[in-house]
């Protein structure tokens, strides 16, 4: 599996886009200008980007509460995401979701789940649909380490392996569930070992290495597409922020965060690689960052200037508005 230059640069751009958009949202949130809950993916950008780069256009991705990166990497515009966080009618969900339940139906991304583990059974059903339709689509379910303790994870993976469904379960192991370290919520050494309980293939990889993520997901997805069945892919990274904007993560052992920042910031690491490989030079890197910074600023402006949804639309689409039904 070779990754060409264009891809490499695209992945770098996207990782940078995620980081800058979330830096921005964090700042806006701290300024008290955003409502609700804001979960950023600092330190996990390589997973989102590696995963999406490995998929084909028709594939389906179920995201979670920490989803900005997933959507950006899939191509959703920063404008729609930021506008959604502001609750504007120009947002991805027309202001009905905020940060936690983003959607982009045009890009194969149904509503993300704010319920931990909430998408795992649903995604499994999407794969079942593909099995029945034989439509060659692979479904991805993305969730965290903490979500692997929810019973529905177990029910879904058992079903997926039993029926040999075309699905890849991506576990973003950022080593924490809110304030709880992984050792405090599960004893199993590698989360991917849980695949054994379903006679499913499981793999643990470095989730801060975007190329590694891309290659591993590509393999698992092609396997699933070929009818080889599901995979549980554990991507190990580190949550470089608190659980959500406003959480200062005082519960962390001193120095832990700094250590990971220094060694495992996926963007720093990748940038270094690209420079060493000569894929990019400093000027190009700066240019990219500048462009993206500008893009984000414009997106914020767009969001701020957009309208809030009209009060009278509040009752729409509680039910599908289909003549036969109403």
């Amino acid at each position, binding site marked *: 599996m070779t990754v060409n230059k264009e891809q490499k640069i695209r992945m770098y751009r996207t990782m940078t886009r995620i980081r800058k958009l979330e830096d921005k949202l964090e700042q806006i949130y701290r300024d008290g200008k955003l409502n609700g809950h804001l979960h950023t993916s600092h330190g996990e950008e390589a997973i989102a980007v590696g995963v999406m780069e490995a998929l084909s256009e028709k594939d*389906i991705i179920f995201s979670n509460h920490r989803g900005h990166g997933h959507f950006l990497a899939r191509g959703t515009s920063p404008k729609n995401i930021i506008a959604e966080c502001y609750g504007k009618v120009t947002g991805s969900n027309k202001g009905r979701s905020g940060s936690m339940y983003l959607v982009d139906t045009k890009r194969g991304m*149904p*509503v993300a789940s704010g319920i931990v583990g909430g998408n795992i059974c*649903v995604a499994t*059903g999407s794969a079942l649909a593909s099995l029945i339709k034989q439509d060659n689509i692979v479904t991805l379910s993305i969730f965290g380490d903490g979500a692997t303790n929810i019973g529905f994870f177990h029910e879904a993976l058992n079903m997926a392996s039993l029926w040999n469904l075309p699905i890849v379960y991506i576990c973003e192991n950022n080593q924490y569930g809110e304030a709880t370290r992984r050792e405090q919520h599960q004893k199993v050494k590698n989360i991917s070992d849980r695949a054994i309980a379903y006679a499913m293939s499981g793999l643990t990889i470095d989730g801060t290495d975007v190329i590694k993520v891309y290659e591993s997901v590509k393999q698992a997805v092609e396997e699933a597409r070929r009818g080889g069945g599901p995979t549980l892919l554990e991507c190990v990274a580190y949550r470089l922020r608190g659980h959500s904007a406003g959480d200062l993560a005082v519960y962390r052992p001193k120095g832990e965060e700094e250590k990971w920042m220094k060694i495992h910031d996926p963007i720093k690491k990748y940038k270094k690689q690209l420079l060493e490989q000569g894929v990019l030079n400093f000027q190009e890197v700066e240019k990219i960052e500048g462009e993206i910074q500008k893009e984000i600023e414009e997106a914020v402006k767009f969001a701020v200037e957009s309208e809030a949804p009209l009060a009278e639309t509040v009752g729409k*689409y509680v039910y*599908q508005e*289909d003549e036969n039904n109403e």
Partner: protein
Amino acid sequence: MSKCMYIEALRTALREEMHRDKNVFIMGEDVTSYGFSVNRGLVDEFGPDRVRNTPISEGAIIGSAVGAALRGMRPVVEIMFVDFIMIGMDQIVNQAAKMSYLSNGELSVPMVIRTPEGTEWFGGGAQHSQTLHSIFMNIPGLKLVIPSDPYDAKGLLKSAIRDDNPVIFFEHKQLYTQKGEVPEKEYIIPLGKAAVKREGKDLTLVATSWMVKHSLEVAEDLKSKISIEVIDPRTLVPLDKDTIINSVKKTGRLLVVDESPISGGIQGEVISVVIQEAFWNMEFPPKRVGSLNTPIPFSESLEKEVIPTKEKIKKEILAMFSD
């Protein structure tokens, strides 16, 4: 017209819809071979891909149906006893019911959950005899269907399957073997239309599911004294308020009979819907009959104390006309 059992009417509806639309499929525990066998024979006709046995995983059964529905399939899930739905409750309340709204209508979840509730005369006991449809009335985004005879069962199940929203379809164990007229030719019954099962002018008796039969028998027994109009809402969401309210405006009296425990049951909801519109027309306080606020005991001598019976309904009615 030909007489058939409720269970057969359901099976015919499933068969017709599966022939009509290849996206319709059945999923549940032992649906190929067991349970109350509404699905009997369908696997031979449609194969194991469309009549799919599942592990004992109510969360994944319901949740995966949501996902399949999001992808254009029309799953009809069977949960063997309504009691077990509680295991997949989160997938209904937090996933199925929210998808359309959160996506501003871009996503739909056209799925049906079929499940039997109520007692078995006798002996299901506390974890196999509950009546739980009432609690779902408080979850916006769901539609609730509860047919009381073979004709309605067939016509409503077909509508439920064609509906683009998550629908919970409540059957009653004791209705399965009840017979009724069902036309050969295809028909559907729209959701949201109540049925006046018997016309009358002195009392509006709103009854659901298995209670409709009791109510009709009571109405017949009392016909020399009291003219009772028996209305079956048939769907709780959407609820055909007008038919009920107009009847009460005519009769001036309301009794609601449902097998749910009284406290927090739909009996109170119906009364409260009616009273706000028909208060000035009412000649007597609206009354309700339901199960006692207890779990369902096993022993016959206890179970029949808990659930609504013809005698209890009759007693309540006579008390409304005692003055």
